[in-house]
């Protein structure tokens, strides 16, 4: 089985987001980047499948050369090779189409990625890739097992979960508890140094124009109520904020 794992490289959850006034975009200054946590789950499951069933795992990232250290980490975890589509994509469609053009040249049985990237939160790249390729699509997948020629999945849906039988090829958005995050071994880190990262140009475009990013200030009241007067909270919720 050939598995493509698409990863995003995103600011760490604890990052303080700031705007670069010269571009009106999110400033990358001082941010620590990580592989998207949901993508990390997807990669972990792909590596488990490689170990249990035998598979070739290829990691794909659409982004600049600054992401190579994180791609290298994915190789250290056990991915066989990597592709970086070099550019600075601004929309989901641009990323999805870059993945689609790669897969059209290099057919895959299974394409895994996180259910969303934690920076722009669109959560639609997997659906766009599946729609464009005509592959079966499920999201978010919480359990994934190989069953015969296809897969058996547990998928979250609005108001519950379902178990499905999914034929290949498929594109899946992943979330916990699909796998446990893994830590690269020393041997993995050493062998990753010699694994190949193919760099391809980003040729896809988007008709959506980015205007500006702004920090969302949620002003909170920060009103403290004494423990002995706790019941007052109910009155305040009824009269001051009308939420009850």
């Amino acid at each position, binding site marked *: 089985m050939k598995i493509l794992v698409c990863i995003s490289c995103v600011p760490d959850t604890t990052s303080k987001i700031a705007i670069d006034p010269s571009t009106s975009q999110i400033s990358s200054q001082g941010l620590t980047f990580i592989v998207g946590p949901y993508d990390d789950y997807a990669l972990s499951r792909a590596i488990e499948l490689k170990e249990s069933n035998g598979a070739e795992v290829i990691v794909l990232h659409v982004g600049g050369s600054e992401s190579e250290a994180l791609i290298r980490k994915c190789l250290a975890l056990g991915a066989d090779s990597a592709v970086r589509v070099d550019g600075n994509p601004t929309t989901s469609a641009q990323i999805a189409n870059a993945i689609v053009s790669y897969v059209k040249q290099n057919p895959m049985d299974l394409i895994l990625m996180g259910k969303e990237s934690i920076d722009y939160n669109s959560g639609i790249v997997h659906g766009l890739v599946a729609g464009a390729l005509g592959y*079966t699509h499920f999201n978010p997948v919480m359990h994934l097992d190989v069953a015969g020629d296809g897969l058996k999945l547990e998928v979250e849906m*609005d108001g519950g979960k379902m178990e499905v039988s999914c034929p290949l090829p498929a594109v899946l958005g992943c979330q916990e508890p699909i796998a446990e995050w893994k830590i690269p071994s020393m041997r993995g880190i050493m062998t990753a140094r010699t694994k190949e990262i193919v760099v391809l140009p980003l040729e896809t475009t988007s008709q959506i124009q980015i205007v500006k*990013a702004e920090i969302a200030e949620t002003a909170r009241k920060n009103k403290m109520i004494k423990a002995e007067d706790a019941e007052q909270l109910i009155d305040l919720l009824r009269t001051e904020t009308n*939420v009850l």
Partner: protein
Amino acid sequence: MKKVAIIAQTKEGQLSETSIQLLSFLSSFSPESILLLAVGEVKFSAVPSSKSVEVITLSEGLWADSSSIEPLAEILEGFTVFGIKSIQVDNLLSLLAASSSQEMISGVQQLTYSAGKFTISKSIFSGKASLTVTSESASYFSLNRNFDFSGNAAYGDQSISSVSTLTNASGSKASILALKPITGAIPLPDAALVVGAGRGLKDPGNWTIVEDLAKALGAATACSKPVSDLNWRPHHEHVGQTGVKISPNLYIACGISGAIQHLAGVNGSRIVVVINNDPEAPFFKHADYGIVGDVNDILPRLTKKLQSH
């Protein structure tokens, strides 16, 4: 502007409140009749709108690949399609968008249309920031649940013009083996009121005080990640960066310290109440109302107060 279609979810045959709001909102700038695609049964015969409304019901089941969505994609050719964000709506919209080579924008917080151009404000970084984008050509939009419909005009009821059903039976190669709906509880993502609890509760046996308060409020229950990791509470109750993201009118956090990963899931809440015995808990900085105290004392007193009148 192109013709407008809405993908709406129904509950017990009725349109959800947000779907009705979305319909009113779009009817103000739709050029002609609106196409309403209802997922599930339709028991309503009129909807508030300024334009006539045609309804197509989509059969239950999987719309998970291009062969199953093909008939729907053909119908939607030439439409601008809107939905309210949910797992199934976003999945369907993204498949439809790509299969017809259209662009999609999700997480829409504000939307205006003028001079042939959409201007959209989109929530990013789990609500910590917003992004303004413009597009003349994007045809698929998923609006956040807490999209601001407050400027909506009030329209009278419009009889729906025709109802037909579209099935996906022709195509999907995938099949459902088992459905496991969550029963007996208010679904968390849609809940207007949420009571969440964390490790401060000390023991899963102590959750009755949380459930009692939630019941008195008519609220859904939620929990922090450590609590679901310990299997004290089911995974689907986990709210946070890697769990469910909620945007209720009221979120009451009990015994949750307020780690940044948890805040990422609750930033969208309109009013936040924090109850914690640690006055240094970082969550208090992000609260509208805070009470420093023991949850075992405070929660039953709040429940009693709610029950008394």
